[in-house]
């Protein structure tokens, strides 16, 4: 079964064709990072306009790359939320049009659930039950997955998401946007003598990263003349503090729940310090998608929809965007 997936929840316009939920025939991603870099992040109206410009060319390229016509597509899947309303509308309207014109079932997908399915787009399939850590610019969620469509949210961020913390930390240190890759590059091969506090929030699976951000700000304010080496060490201390809390709290929850595996997802899952630390510390297998599937993409949406089609009814043309859609 070939599913055409569409993703426009934030600042990537993406269309993919995935066979049987795991084989990527094409996965085209038009990123707006360069457009948004001058703002230090996404601006909703700008994002929406960009999606309108790129939606059709990206879809045409996805079909061409896969070497398929619309007659070889069996269903259309689209992200319905959470995300920016103006951005989601572009993808959902386009998906409805295609589904209606060709007469295909339409599946609305939760963006966060989609991120988890990036782990099914490989030859090694995950084993259930598993614990999923979704870390991105807008989310830091810990989700227990007991089966397809069976999710329970264990915890999430109480203030800044991990990716947002990286963006703000980078801005404090004078490093560019997006902050995660900038901090990763600045810290390569650096051992730091600096240390920042960790917020453990005892006895629950929530995260908080606003305290470490404030601590970094005060450290930067107190440093009279920060040179390049100091910035690198401060960035390393900041990254260490975020990574350590994510890894230790996730492993602790995984042990408590006796899951078989840990799955990472979301843009921050491509952070090499996070990947290395999980690999070194986890007693359980940790699955991490390749970087291109960690960030927003339509292949994960198509994969997720494959398992929805197997278990329930497809959505009809009443499908609407749900910017504040919850998960788990």
């Amino acid at each position, binding site marked *: 079964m070939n599913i055409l997936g569409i993703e426009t929840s934030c600042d990537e316009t993406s269309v993919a064709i995935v066979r049987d939920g795991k084989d990527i025939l094409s996965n085209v991603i038009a990123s707006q990072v360069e457009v948004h870099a001058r703002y230090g992040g996404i601006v909703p109206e700008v994002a929406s306009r960009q999606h309108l410009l790129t939606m059709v060319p990206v879809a045409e390229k996805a079909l061409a790359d896969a070497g398929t016509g619309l007659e070889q597509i069996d269903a259309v899947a689209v992200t319905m939320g959470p995300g920016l309303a103006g951005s989601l509308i572009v993808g959902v309207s386009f998906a409805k049009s295609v589904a209606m014109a060709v007469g295909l079932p339409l599946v609305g997908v939760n963006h966060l659930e989609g991120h988890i399915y990036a782990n099914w787009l490989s030859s090694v399939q995950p084993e259930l039950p598993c614990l999923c850590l979704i870390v991105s610019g807008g989310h830091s969620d810990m989700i227990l997955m007991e089966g397809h469509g069976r999710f329970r949210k264990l915890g999430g961020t109480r*203030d*800044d998401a991990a990716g947002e913390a990286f963006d703000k930390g980078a801005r404090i240190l004078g490093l560019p946007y997006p902050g995660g890759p900038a901090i990763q590059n600045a810290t390569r091969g650096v051992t730091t003598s600096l240390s920042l506090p960790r917020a453990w929030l005892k006895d629950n699976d929530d995260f908080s990263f606003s305290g470490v951000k404030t601590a970094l700000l005060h450290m930067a304010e107190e440093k009279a003349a920060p040179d390049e080496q100091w910035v690198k060490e401060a960035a390393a201390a900041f990254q260490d503090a975020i990574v350590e809390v994510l890894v230790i709290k996730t492993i602790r929850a995984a042990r408590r729940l006796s899951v078989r595996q840990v799955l990472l997802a979301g843009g921050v899952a491509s952070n090499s310090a996070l990947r290395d630390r999980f690999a070194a510390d986890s007693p359980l297998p940790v699955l991490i998608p390749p970087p291109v599937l960690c960030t927003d993409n339509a292949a994960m949406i198509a994969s997720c929809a494959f398992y929805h089609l197997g278990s329930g009814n497809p959505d009809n043309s009443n499908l609407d965007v749900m910017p504040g859609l919850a998960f788990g």
Partner: protein
Amino acid sequence: MAHSTVTTHSPEQTRRLGRFIGGLAQGNDLYLLKGNLGTGKTHLVQGIAFGLGIREYACSPSFMIAREYRGRLALYHLDLYRLDHIEEITDLGLDEYFRADAVCAIEWAEKGSGVLPQDNLTIELEHLPGDVREITFLPHGIRYDNLAKAILNALAQDREMTWKLA
């Protein structure tokens, strides 16, 4: 009404202050939060959300610019942190967030001065040494004069905690 200042000593206390504001909030209310990184703006909005009967933690909207929550009234939680030009702010279509069935709280409102409505409750947050925050209410308009009085009144009657007011 002249301004008044409340001192808090922990994120929990800042949230508690917010909870009183949320309890007194009405549709169309606009709160403008001003203060540097780490002064407790998001903690205050979390409290406002709890006071509106919203059960989840209102997270920082810096990345998404706007987040929406559903409680007794809707809460629009906006953040102008990343917007450096006034055109970017007028581009957001802020009018959509000022609604009869919603409360709007805007972080980094100082970036929007000139384009935000004149009637509002401005809340300035300042970080003093230690975990101490000075939170100053500057009401603009009759509705917000009354709201600020009601907030101070509620704090004065709080049986669980003594508030330092100035």
